[in-house]
């Protein structure tokens, strides 16, 4: 039991961060507005959760300018994908 609990990731305890990660592991990349639409959250709320995932190095972003407007594409890092997989396995173990 203790082993399993160790694999549960604090970063994914929050529902919005869990949602961001779920969407990013099945898509090559998603931009800020798409994520906002998907999760139905405010700009500020989403930005703060993205920042916290970035700090963990679970996601990365690429900023570019389209029609002179900033456009940010987010994607999951290998580290993030591994952590997410571990987290889901842990949940499945717990629910067995």
């Amino acid at each position, binding site marked *: 039991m203790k082993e399993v609990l160790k694999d549960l990731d604090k970063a994914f305890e929050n529902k919005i961060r*869990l949602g961001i990660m*779920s*969407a990013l592991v*099945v898509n090559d990349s*998603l*931009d800020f507005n798409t994520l906002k*639409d998907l999760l139905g959250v405010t700009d500020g709320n989403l930005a703060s959760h993205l920042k916290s995932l970035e700090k963990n190095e679970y996601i990365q972003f690429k900023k570019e300018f389209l029609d002179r407007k900033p456009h940010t594409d987010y994607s999951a890092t290998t580290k993030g994908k591994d952590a997410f997989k571990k987290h889901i396995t842990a*949940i499945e173990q*717990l*629910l067995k």
Partner: protein
Amino acid sequence: MKEKYIEDLREIKKMMNLSTRFISLSGLSGVSIGIIALFGVWFADHIVFKDQNYLVADRIELSDKSITHILLIAIGTLLLSTITAIFFTVKKSKQQNQNVWNHQTKRLLINLFIPLIAGGLLCFILLFKGFIGLLPPLTLMFYGLALVNASKYTLPEIRSLGLFEIVLGLIAVQLIDYGLFLWAFGFGILHIAYGLFIQRKYQS
């Protein structure tokens, strides 16, 4: 504690689906496309194919009048189907509080249109060369291929609809004189049947 994790798993699944698939496909648009297709086939049968043995694999001398009639019926059917499909889909998106024009819609449409436009252009060329008998089987096949290709980005049922259309298209090449009948079955009856099924299954 357990409930929280069951809820988490549900959320993960929901976000994975929402972010990759276009889920606002309306069953009613399938039904309406099917009905319009049946009307289209009826017009084609009565105006162009009546008394004429066009349903063969060989090249045929088509009068300009016949070509114009076929093009008008085809464009009319296509236009009406597209408009009703968009109408019901937008309506359903609004019900589900989804944005219609998003990243998932664009991906679905791009993948649908690659085989569809290729097939459409091929049929256009064949029509002007007089191979009119090949149009019902080929439109069925390319539509089926387009559906299979697009099914990864929308409701999973679309894949089997696509497979059925491909098989019907192949049968229609073999039984070429039944081309219009098979076309009516593929575009008419199957759309209505799948539309009703989807409408019932995803009604919320």
